[in-house]
């Protein structure tokens, strides 16, 4: 016996819509009261210790006494797509702060906001010049031969390339949700997993470069939203109405929105590299990638590597990340750490705050 499946009564509909209307009105009032400075992201105390062209090097203020600070500083390399603030979204959800509390001395490259005049910046420039310059700066400042590198998503791909080209300057490499083998994105029965990689395989990125020069952040955002268009473009905001009375919850939501939609555009040439050389050509794992005239050989990764991935990552599927283990030169010191979360949740999720930085810091301390 089947039952009529939509049992929404007249007074329930009226009550529900009236409630929605009321919440929207309250939400608008509360949102109007908020100032942009209330929605602070990337707020951990820091100094700009070096700056060049589009980017700045931050050095974060320690949160433990000097004797407890790990002797080898760590440089965080964020991705070029979306801002560095994902590593420091808010005080209680901050990868940076969690590392500082663990006694890790944190530096971070803020890639900034490239302009049209930067459209010809290539992967070679970012890896062989900018990252190298930042690493050399820290080595000079601290009178050290090597530093630790920590890569975030595509920033991890660049950190991997750099470590393979300059292993003598990298003590240990920590990677998080980092795409390495772009051919392993697809998961049968889960079409949203690796969707971006599938879409990018046939993209005419030369034409995109010609048309845009600087790839606008909005174009990049649209491709992220395609993974769940209804949920991310409408459902998310429909659910927001339930938090309008909770200022803290609303601020948390706004911080994430600010990070998501306030990101930088990407220099067209480096974007073309990412799509053509990495995604379409899969040159990194094929051993065909050349930067600044030098071949990037993953076999040169002789330093200890901790490869951290998110088990529910649909943007960079775990298989793409852990493929690195097959290519590193030093398999003995290669370790993987899965975390039960998603691509962004690994940095901003509540549960991950107690896992990511504490375990990565413990691993760094273990390395001789």
């Amino acid at each position: 016996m089947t039952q009529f499946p939509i049992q929404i009564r007249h007074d329930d509909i009226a009550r529900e819509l009236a409630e929605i209307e009321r919440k929207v009105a309250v939400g608008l009032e509360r949102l109007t009261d908020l100032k942009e400075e209330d929605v602070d992201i990337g707020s951990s105390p820091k100094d700009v210790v070096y700056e060049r062209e589009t980017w700045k090097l931050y050095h974060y203020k320690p949160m433990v006494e000097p004797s407890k600070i790990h002797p080898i500083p760590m440089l965080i390399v964020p991705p070029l797509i979306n801002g560095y603030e994902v590593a420091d979204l808010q005080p209680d959800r901050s990868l940076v702060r969690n590392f500082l509390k663990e006694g890790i001395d944190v530096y971070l490259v803020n890639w900034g906001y490239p302009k049209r005049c930067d459209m010809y910046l290539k992967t070679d420039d970012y890896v062989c010049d900018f990252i190298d310059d930042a690493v050399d700066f820290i080595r000079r400042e601290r009178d050290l031969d090597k530093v630790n590198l920590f890569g975030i998503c595509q920033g991890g791909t660049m950190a991997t390339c750099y470590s393979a080209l300059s292993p003598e300057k990298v003590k240990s490499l920590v990677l998080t949700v980092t795409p390495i083998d772009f051919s392993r994105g697809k998961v049968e029965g889960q079409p949203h997993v690796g969707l971006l990689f599938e879409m990018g395989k046939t993209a005419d990125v030369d034409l995109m470069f010609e048309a845009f020069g600087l790839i606008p952040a909005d174009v990049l955002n649209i491709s992220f939203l395609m993974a769940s268009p209804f949920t991310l473009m409408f459902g998310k905001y429909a659910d927001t109405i339930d938090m309008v009375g909770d200022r803290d919850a609303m601020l948390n939501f706004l911080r994430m929105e600010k990070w998501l939609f306030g990101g930088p555009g990407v220099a067209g040439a480096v974007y073309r590299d990412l799509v053509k050389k990495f995604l379409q050509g899969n040159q990194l794992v094929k051993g065909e990638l050349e930067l600044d005239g030098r071949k990037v050989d993953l076999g040169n990764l002789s330093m200890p590597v901790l490869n951290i991935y998110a088990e529910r990552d649909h943007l960079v599927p775990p298989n793409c990340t852990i493929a690195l283990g097959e290519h590193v030169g030093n398999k003995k010191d290669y370790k993987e750490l899965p975390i039960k979360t998603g691509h962004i949740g690994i940095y901003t999720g509540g549960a991950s705050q107690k896992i990511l930085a504490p375990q990565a810091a413990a691993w760094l301390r273990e390395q001789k």
Partner: protein
Amino acid sequence: MDWAEQTNDVIKHWTDAQKELWSSWMRMMPGASAGTGGWPGMPGMGGGWPGMGGMGGGWPGMPGMGGMGGMGGFDPSQWLKTMGESWAGQGSSAQRVAGNLVQTPDMLVRSMNLLMKAWQVVAPKIEEGKPWQPDLQKVMQEWQQRLAELPERASATTNEFTELTKTLFEKWTPITGPWMQMVAQATASGHPGAAFMGGTAPMTRILGFEEGLFPMLTGVSDLPRATVVRQKMGKMLEAVDAFGDLRKAQAAFHKKMGEAMGTAVERTMDHLAKVAEKGEPITSVRDLIRTWFTVADKTLNEAFTSQNFLETQDDMIRALLTYKVKQRDALEIIYDAMDIPTRTNLDEAYKDIQELKREVRRLRRELGQVSHGAVAESPGKKAAAKKVSKEPAGKEAATS
């Protein structure tokens, strides 16, 4: 009550609730337009709601669901959309979210209307245990057809050249506006390319003179000046062609999206049929909408990764980018003529600068190796005359 009656009941209740919702929103408007109340902080509210006079368009509700008496020509959906966009355009994160929030009721209404219309078609068949898919597919095909025709219809009612010049005006009005306006007027009754020769009639006259009355002018089109004009004309025609190609590609893309959405609706109906079998009815509007979003996202994901869809999408994106490039090429003719640097000129300069920077980097590295040995062996001695500052970055980061 049978399912058809129950469905009509739900639809009637839904329509009544919608009326009340929109009426309630409208009640806030008079106060707002008089500057005495309405939504707090809404941009443009103090001086009356912009564009209200010309909103018109009628109630966008579904056929057969009853009209929205008392609404007149007011389109609440359009109003919310304009209001939301206006708010979102203000720039701050809170305002952007407010813009999305204000459009939530409209999104719920649109989703419910779509689902109710589909359910109205399939409910009696499901109750009788008969195949319901063919009836739904028929409705969906009509809907998809309308969706696919959108760009074509727009094209049919809009002169392509007028559309092109409009987009150019929007971007470049101060410099090119008057010039483009002249061209637009000249092309109103003829082929756009002819306008660059002075309009259709003069060109015909010239060609006639050349052939018949002035044989000494034969071959004038081979003169360099004429060649340049032809090239310019060609660029403009390429932009017009690209615009036409874009319309076609958009139509094809909309067709594919329509098919995917049709499948999503069908799957949602299938889900409701299963819900009926399990005896676990949906009891709220938002639960029904959540179900729709979940099924729709999964269906669209599948469509997005199908080879056929990817090809159509690539074609559309390619057409869009090509149009952008051709539009710029056409525009640069004007800039060239006025001795103003073009986008292409600037991009070439940027490229040169970037290559020079790389050259400096290479030379600096070589110099460092010659005078100090390998950098890696003595990091403290690396020559790097680059800007170093030490300044707190907390505030800067907070507002970036």
